[in-house]
Structures are given as structure tokens and as C-alpha cells.
């Protein structure tokens, strides 16, 4: 049987800490009205993704129906319902990157990692995402790995870039 959240938090101080951080963040919000998306951003930062128990917590804390929370989470690409790998590889397929060969880079990353956008490698090392423009179009095609942005990327450079992230 699934334990309820309170019991699980008692057994798992790590998890409790994460929920406390989220709780404090919500407590500090001046106007909770309309803050759902900002709260979900913060929650994803803390937990890495948005599992059911986090959504339920947000729903009761903000006093927003669960259906609304689910509706919002599934509407926006940015929110993930599944855990991400240790590193997130994001390939830009905005126009500037596309016309300068971003697709070839994307295909090479797919082949190298053996996964498609939205998936995570079996060893949990990499998740792969696509975005439409990160605003560094001058250096297209662009690949972002975690917080590092790499411009003028080519299929040949892909392996070298990935190797930097263990």
C-alpha cells in the first residue's frame, strides 16, 4: 500500500527537507494569486521533476484544484513528470539553428545517446530535450548541456562535448 506523505517524510529526512524548502517559498509569496506557474518552476528546481505527491502538495498549499495543477503542468513543455538524467542535453532547433544544420547535430546526439527528445538514457546520465531558440542564434547551431551553452556545434563535436559530462 502507498504510504501517505506524512509518514514517508518522517522516514526520509532528505525528502522532508525538500518539501520544507518548497513550503517556505510558498510562504514568502506576497500574492499567491496567479503564482501557480512560478511555484511549479521552483518545485521542479527542488525536486528535479514533478511527481504526483509534489503536485498534490502544491494543490493543497495554494488551494488550487488538483485538476487545475495537472492541467497547467501538462500544458507547458518546461515541466517534466518524469525524473531527468544527471545532465540535460538540449539541442536548439530554432530557425537559425535549423538552417545552419542543427538537425544533423540533433541526429548525431540521438544516435550517440540512443534516445529521443524527452527521454533519458538507461544509466541515468543524460536526458535529451529540444528547444526552439535559446537566444544565441548568432552562433547557431547551439547545444546546451546543463547550464553551459555551446555555439557553432557540429556533428563531429558532439562526442567531445558529451564526454565532458560524467
Amino acid at each position, binding site marked *: 500500500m502507498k504510504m501517505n506523505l506524512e509518514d514517508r517524510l518522517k522516514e526520509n529526512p532528505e525528502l522532508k527537507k525538500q518539501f520544507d524548502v518548497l513550503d517556505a517559498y510558498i510562504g514568502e509569496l506576497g500574492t499567491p494569486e496567479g503564482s501557480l506557474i512560478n511555484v511549479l518552476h521552483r518545485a521542479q528546481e527542488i525536486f528535479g521533476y514533478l511527481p504526483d505527491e509534489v503536485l498534490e502538495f502544491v494543490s493543497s498549499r495554494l488551494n488550487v484544484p488538483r485538476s487545475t495543477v495537472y492541467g497547467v503542468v501538462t500544458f507547458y513543455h518546461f515541466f517534466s513528470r518524469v525524473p531527468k538524467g544527471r545532465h540535460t542535453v538540449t539541442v536548439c532547433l530554432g530557425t537559425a539553428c535549423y*538552417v545552419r544544420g542543427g538537425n544533423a547535430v540533433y541526429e548525431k546526439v540521438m544516435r550517440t545517446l540512443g534516445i529521443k527528445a524527452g527521454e533519458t538514457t538507461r544509466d541515468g546520465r543524460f536526458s535529451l530535450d529540444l528547444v526552439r531558440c535559446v537566444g*544565441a542564434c*548568432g552562433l547557431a547551431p547551439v547545444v546546451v548541456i546543463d547550464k553551459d551553452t555551446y555555439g557553432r556545434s557540429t556533428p563531429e563535436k558532439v562526442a567531445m562535448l558529451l564526454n565532458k559530462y560524467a
Partner: protein
Amino acid sequence: MIRNQLLVCAGGACITSGEKSVKDVLVDELKKNGIEDEVQVIETGCMGACDLGPIVVVYPEGTFYQKVTAENAGLIVNEHLVKGRTVDGLLYTEPTSERKAQTSGDIPFYTRQVKRVLRNCGVIDPLSIEEYIARDGYFALGKALEMTPDDIIQVLVDSGLRGRGGAGFPTGRKWKATREAKGSPKYVVCNGDEGDPGAFMDRSVLEGDPHSIVEAMAIAGYAIGAEQGYMYVRAEYPLAIERFEYAIGKAREYGFLGRNILGAGFNFDIEIRIGAGAFVCGEETALLRSIEGKRGTPSVKPPFPAQSGLWNKPTLINNVETYANIPQIITNGAEWFRSVGTLKNPGTKVFALVGKVQNTGLVEVPMGTTLRELVFDIGGGIPGGKKFKAAQTGGPSGGVITADYLDMPIDFDSVKEIGTIMGSGGLVVLDEDNCMVDIAKFYLGFTVDESCGKCTPCREGTRQMYQMMERICDGKGRDGDIERLNKLANMIEDTSLCGLGQSAPNPVLSTIRFYEDEYRAHIYEKKCPSHVCKHLLTYSVTPDKCVGCTACARQCPVHAITGEVKKIHVIDQSKCTKCGSCYEICRFSAIRKE
């Protein structure tokens, strides 16, 4: 006492090309030479010439160093600052005259621009409110608070400023409507969603000159009678969010936000709302729902946001670049604003010049500048000696401007006449290697992904169009496809609920209009004239060029290539997946692609 200032461009592209480590090296070297108290290092917003990054400018000389790396940044300190010798190797070389440019004033990319919106970007430290003030910042707010709201709106009406978010709606009229609308409270919203992929004007303003938007939003609040503003920024722009947040904090500290601003009895504050990756949220009614914390689905207009916007209250929504013009219009007047640009399109426009062009980056030019000036004079032409084919404007809602229209002045009205839109300023240059059918398919794929699903024509119609485009690119096009595309496109345009769907067929319609022969080649001859569409290509070995090095055979992921050492190789067409690996690896140009 400071004798030199080093301005390091910390715009998105320069950060990508290693700005942080360059800055660290500069700071380190200054310390090593014991001159860290005499020379100041300042990070600025985007200087525009993204292709030349990372950029470091040394003042007072104004020496413009480009493509600086962590390895050679030390030279700027050890040579220029310690020994007074310009580092020639890091100067920009003007390609035609082969002259070295000492300052940005010697580089055509800069000299042909008129910086208004970007006047502070790359010149001031975006984190310093004092530097913004030194460049006349917040004086417009001071002046505005001494005017009546109606006078402010009149100045805007007289200026002829049109919204820079894409549609070009007269800003003064919008402010007036919001001021006159019944209902309270009212809200001021800034659209920083910048959804057009391939555009980064708004990002650069928010990162390089955030206070100009804070000031403009406060002026707007006073003019329309609002006390609360919302800044909506897309989540893909973390640095813009950070800098804008910081600017809001500073503005509060200095009393430009908060209660009783400048003693005029006016209260105003701004909150940031972060997007979450949905293109449709750039559309104003969807954006307002997203600020409310809901799913960002658009609604039918009217009512317009001016009447019923955020929480059903009158709401003013303008684009970042639109706001960026406002303080200067208040300070310098409507006549000044009209002194550049054209009669119906006064002022300047910022373009993100990207794609197949030599000098990629951000450029600001008077409205009515021709495409030729943008692409060739400022952009330096097409790299690799290739031929210019077209420029795409307006992103997924826009279309193409072809070589025949290179001399047409670009403004909101003229581009409409040839079936595209100005959009927010993304200008993607395409060369002979780009297939127009493929580009149209790319945009359509984008719309399919981004359609919010609320209305059927957009959700299903674009998908149908996309499948047809895919078929055409896969070599399965059928007679009558062009007509079918046209018909469906018109239907989607007429019946979609919001601007996303209504404009989604544009890229297809525009490319059919100018490149019908390319479509026909795909459909009837099963050929892609630009050699882009994978399934329409055949790779073969040119016997007299093949030396039998075996590189291609080893590279081929599906073992479709056979041949022995020093013998001519052969590609088995039935196995070939057209991945192009052999074409890339061959050092003897022996693989033919057609």
C-alpha cells in the same frame, strides 16, 4: 583612480563563446600586474556583433578587440594596458579593404546602425542603476509625472510609434483605449515571451538595459492609471530574468517603484512572471491567462485586453522593444522620434540578423531600410561565396522576402504586400543551399507542436498540412497537392481562433507563391533542387575520383558501401539510408549527392 575601463560583452552569444573565462583571465592578469585598482572590468549587455564574440572594448581609446579567448585575453592586459601597445592580432579586419579597425567606429556593421532602443546595450553596466541614470535614465519618468496622463498619451499618438511585437498596432491608441476603459484596477503587462525562434532582440534589451523597461512600464502605469505591472519572460532566458529582477530591486531601493514615486503621489510596482515553454503564450490573450497561473489558451477578440484583460480588468500589453522606445520619446518628443524612419513607420527597428549571413547579430536600423542594406552592407553578405536566396521574417507566422525584393524598404506595410509580416524582428537569411519546401515544413512542424489544441482548424488543420508537406519531402507528393495545400491553408486562416492558427499557413503560402517550381520539382520530378530533402537524394561514387581509401565503407552505419582497398567503391542504393556520412567523410569529393 581609474585610468582604463574594459567593457566585456556579456550578451547571450558572447557567454556562449566563452565570455566568462575571458573575463576571469582579464581580472587575474590585472591583479598579477598590480593594476586592478587602475583598470576596471565591466560586463555589459549585448554589443550586437555576436559573430565576433567574445568582445572586449578598452576605454578611453575605444579599442575594439574581437574573438578574444581565454588564451589570448592576457595580451590585452600585458600589451595594451601595461605597455600601451595595441594587440593587432585581436582587431577586426575589414574584409574588403583588409584594413584593421581600431574602434567600433571603423566597422561598417556598426556605422550603418542607428542606436535608439539599443543605445545603452553594450555601453553601460546593466547591473548599475547609476549608469542608467547617467545616460538620462528615469528623467523621462520624472518628466512624465509632471505631465498629465492625457498629454503623455498625446505625445505617443503624435510620435506614431507602432507596436514592435509583430502586428504594428499604434501604441498611443492602445494606451488611450486602456486609459478610457471602465474598470479597476488596471494592469500594465510587458510581453517578453519572444517566441519567434531565431530572434533575440527582447532578450538583449532585458539583459543589457533592463531599467529602460522598468521606467517605461512605470510611465505606462501612470498614463493609463495602473498600480501593478507584470513582466512576462520566457523561461529559456534565465539571465534576462535575473537581470530584470535585480533592476526591479534597485528601482524600488531608489524609489522609482513603490509608493509615492518621486513625490508625485503615484504608486507602482512590477512582478515577474516566468513562462514555461509554450509559444502560444506570446499571443496576448494566452499570455494573460498564463500570468494568472492558468493554461495559456487564447480567447476570441474582442473583447481586447484593453477592455478585459488580466482578471477581466483593463490591461495594457506591449512588447519589450515597444516599451524601450518610450522613455526616449517622452524625453525628446514626438518630432525627434519621427526624425528617422518613414512617414507611416517612424523610428527604428531592431533585427536579429541570423542564418546564412557573415555578420550575425543584433542590428538597429531606421524603419524603411532595405533588405540589401541589412544583408549586404551591415551583414557583410553570404558566407562561402554562396548566393542569397531569401530572407524569412515573422517566424512561424511569416514568410519570405526574395532576391527580387532586396531593394524594397522594410516596414510593417510593405512586407505585408508581398505576403509576409514584419514580425518581431527575426530575420533569417537563406542561401542557395536551403530548400524552401523544407523551411516551410520546418515552420509548420513548429506550429503543430505549439498549437494549444483549443480550436480544431489549428489543431487538426496544421497537422494535415504538415503530413502533406512531409509526403512531398519524402518523395511521395501527388498531383494536386499544391492546390490542396492552398485550400486547406485558406480554411485554417479563416477559421482559427487566434493569431497562431490564423497565421500558421503563411510560411507555406509564401513559399508556394515564390517557389512553386521547387514544390513542383519535389512533387513531379521527385527531386530536391537544393539537395536538402533526404529521401529525394541519391548518393553515388564518382569512379574517376574514388581512390579506394575505404573511409566511406567504414563510416557507413548500414554497410551499404562495398569495395576493396584501392578499388572503386559502390553504394548499394537499396540499403542506403541517405544519412550523408559518406559524403561528409570523403576527402576526395568522390561522393556525388543529387
